[in-house]
């Protein structure tokens, strides 16, 4: 688990690169697009990118699921060394758990954002973010 970015193999690199690309796309959407809907979509994409990044950290190429199934354990005695050896090839479960939470949160935020967009549209009759500037300075 103690690796740095440069120790990774090419497949793992590709995950990172994809994740960063997705983040950039999301940022572009959120910061440049003028439509509120597009802004929300951008934020959502940004969110996904981060989640992907998180997942890719725990990922090990051709790793197994982090479950000590009877088939895996077979008849090895459950000593500390054995457990360590077995878990070498397993994917880290913690990032996945985190991502799960993060996805749920992201969903909640997006839902709130969309409902706000609806209210903004009713109030201002526009979705252009530059025209929604009643509150300033």
């Amino acid at each position: 688990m103690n690796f740095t970015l440069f120790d990774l193999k090419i497949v793992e690199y590709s995950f990172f690169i994809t994740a960063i690309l997705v983040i950039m796309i999301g940022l572009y959407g959120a910061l440049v697009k003028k439509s509120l809907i597009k802004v929300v979509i951008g934020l959502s994409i940004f969110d996904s990118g981060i989640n992907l990044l998180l997942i890719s950290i725990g990922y090990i190429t051709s790793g197994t699921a982090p479950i000590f199934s009877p088939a895996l354990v077979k008849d090895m005695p459950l000593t500390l060394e054995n457990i360590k050896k077995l878990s070498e090839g397993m994917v880290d479960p913690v990032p996945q758990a985190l991502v799960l939470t993060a996805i749920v949160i992201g969903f909640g935020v997006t839902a709130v954002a969309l409902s706000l967009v609806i209210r903004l549209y009713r109030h201002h009759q526009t979705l252009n973010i530059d025209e929604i500037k009643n509150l300033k300075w």
Partner: protein
Amino acid sequence: MVGSPVLFIAVPLLAAFLIPLLGMVWKESIRILPGLVLLYMLVLAITLLEQVMHTGTIVEILAGWKPPWGINLVFSPFTGILATLMILMGFIIWIYSYRFKNVDFEEAKKYFILFMMLVTGSVGIVLTGDIFNQFVFIEITSISAYALTAFYKHRDSAEASFKYLMVGSLSSMFLLLAIILIYSQLGTLNMADIASKAHLMKPEFKILAVIFFIVGLGIEAEIFPLNGWVPDAYAQAPGPVGAAFAGIVVKAGVYALIRIIFTLFDVSGTHQFLIVIGLTTMIISEMAAIRQDRLKRMLAYSSLGQMGLVLVAFGIGTEEGIFAAMFLLINHAIGKSLLFLSGSYLVYNSADKYISETNGMGKFLPVTSFLFALGALAVVGMPPFSGFWGKFFMMSAAAHANMLLIIALILSVSLIELVYYFRVINRIYFYKKESHITPKKPTVNAVIAMATLGVIILIIGFYPDLISGYLHQASQALLDKGKYIQDVLSTGQLLTH
């Protein structure tokens, strides 16, 4: 032992979900339940705090997983005081908003659910000892805060809420990034564990993590470039919610930031950074505040300035500095909440909430106006009210640390603050009332809530010893990083063996 820290999170969360259920049975219960819960929590918090002061930090382990792996709650003198303060503020704001939306059941239900969520999230941020858990609590707080900001449909509240949401969700991503970085480097999410292992991290990653943390938490801590949403949200949210933002949410944000900087990493330059960013925040927001023509926006900007001051005080980094920062924090929570609560009655019936619409209210709303003036005097730090002590301790801490230029800068900015508060007081008492405004008398519960805050201001002002003992312990607790690590990790050891 009357209870354990987990109740601070479990009980209000449960209450939040019970409110709609109970509401079906007895409509009044949606108003009473939060109060009962908060009162219970307040009693619990005070007893626990008393205990902690004598016996030392309480670390609670959740679900039986020992600290480096499981989630734990830390009720130390430092976190305990903040939690108690938040619960107290929550309780007072509940008293104030007891009659809120009295006729509209649905609205009231939503309000109280969200409010309980807000309190849960904020208390959770302070108590938790796990960074991802903290992230979750931050999101709980934020989402309920978005919703509360957008509570009124006829104002521009959706706009304010959307801005808050945009900035908030962006920065929560950075928070997540920081957590990823730490996890990828250290493989742990427990704060104490991170703190004990921080030296193992590569320096560049450590700095990167700190930067992402600052951005992620800075949004709740309202530091300068990330605080554009603050005036909008404070001004558009209902009055009690504005008070809750100033009294509860910001405190949680500042706590998280301080915890990261003081306990988690020992990156050099973070203290100076706190001072610089605190000063910037303070100067710019005070300058904006003096030019406001709407009351609540002015209060919001002023709140920003105060929090900047708190950050500077933390940035001094000595025990004295932290003590002063805590004092300022408490004063700000009480004084600014009082201002929001009384201020929203002063401009109750006006559409635009202009400052000029408070003209002459002193005659019609004597108690409210008096309390507003009291709050203003406390916030600007006039002796013998509570704000003075905070300011004085902060100044002397800075002087001990040889930061004379900073003192001068802060004092000159305080002048601005003084001017705009006194302008409002002058208007309230010595101007003719605008004819189109009809003053709204505060309800009894609102008066009780505001008067409680006023009394606290006076008590602390005349007898600061009441809290200074606790605060000294709290600041020592924050500074003593080794003890924190040991407290948390040893609990785990005890459990395993």
